[in-house]
């Protein structure tokens, strides 16, 4: 059985390695929901692999008109990118995100569990 401290460090190390590699290995194809959306709004065939960029833009305007939800939020690292830094910025962004998640998960768990 693995030592408890080593297990924790190994777990976080694996997460950070995945985070660092993610931008280099991840596919930039639309995900399942986006693909369904583009298919339904005519920017892509259900089983086709090409996306009509122009139609995709129109689709986004159309859906906003349907739902009326115009809320938009300027996140600090949109789409896991850091301005001016290409792929390495993305890797840094995912690593930062992973560390933030670790911090919040540890902190919140400690605070909540302590009340018991």
């Amino acid at each position, binding site marked *: *059985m*693995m030592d*408890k401290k080593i297990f*924790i460090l190994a*777990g*976080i190390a*694996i*997460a*950070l390695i*995945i*985070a660092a*590699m*993610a931008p280099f*290995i*991840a*596919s930039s*194809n*639309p*995900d*399942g*929901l986006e*693909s*369904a*959306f583009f298919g*339904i709004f005519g920017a892509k065939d*259900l089983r*086709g*692999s*090409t*996306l009509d960029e122009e139609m995709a833009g129109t689709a*986004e305007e159309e*859906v*906003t008109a*349907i*739902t009326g*939800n*115009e*809320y*938009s*939020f300027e*996140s600090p*690292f*949109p*789409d*896991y990118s850091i301005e001016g830094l290409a792929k390495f910025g993305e890797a840094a*962004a*995912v690593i930062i*995100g*992973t560390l*933030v*998640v*670790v911090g*919040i*998960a*540890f902190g*919140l*768990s*400690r605070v*909540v*569990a302590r009340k018991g």
Partner: protein
Amino acid sequence: MHIPDAFIPLPQAAVYWIIALIFIALALRWARRELSEEKIPLVAILAAGIFAIQAVNIPIPWGTSGHMMGAALAAIVLGSPFAAVFILTLVLIVQGVLFGDGGLTVMGANIINMGVIGGFVGYYSYRGLLPVFKSPYAPAFIAGWLSLFVAALACAVEMAVAGTFPLELGLFSMGLYHAVIGIIEGGITAFAIYLIATARPDIMADTTVVPA
């Protein structure tokens, strides 16, 4: 399947938030009662791993990609569907606020799909299948696949209620893509459980034992 803001009207998004908050409250109660000092690092590792693996979009056919959700894994390893709600909520908040991945007004719907539905379907299908297979790996694979597939269908229904997708075409498209993405979910869920059970059999002792 992170829903962006534009896909759901605000009043409906508010309803999803209210439902999500009820489950978040229940997840916090679970954490207060069940989260021992021993398990806290495990929550942090799972949250970090799930966040990182969600950034890895794997290509599937039809010009599409998909990534793991992780709810079934979290629920199985920590022994409660509320563990998935707890962890996926944290992950979704960081993704939405820092990276604009998934809308903020619609985050309630994303928490319901990926945390609540993913966690409950993953956990209970795993528990139900464990006595049938007498080994944790096949049940973990099926639970992972089913958790993602059902969450995707729920998302399609929400899109239909929102007026964004027609119901049948939405269910068909979401079902088709996520039936394939589910293979990724199931495979990584089973593999991660193998890794954890190998490194620390004590952690998995409660959840891999076949009920008599």
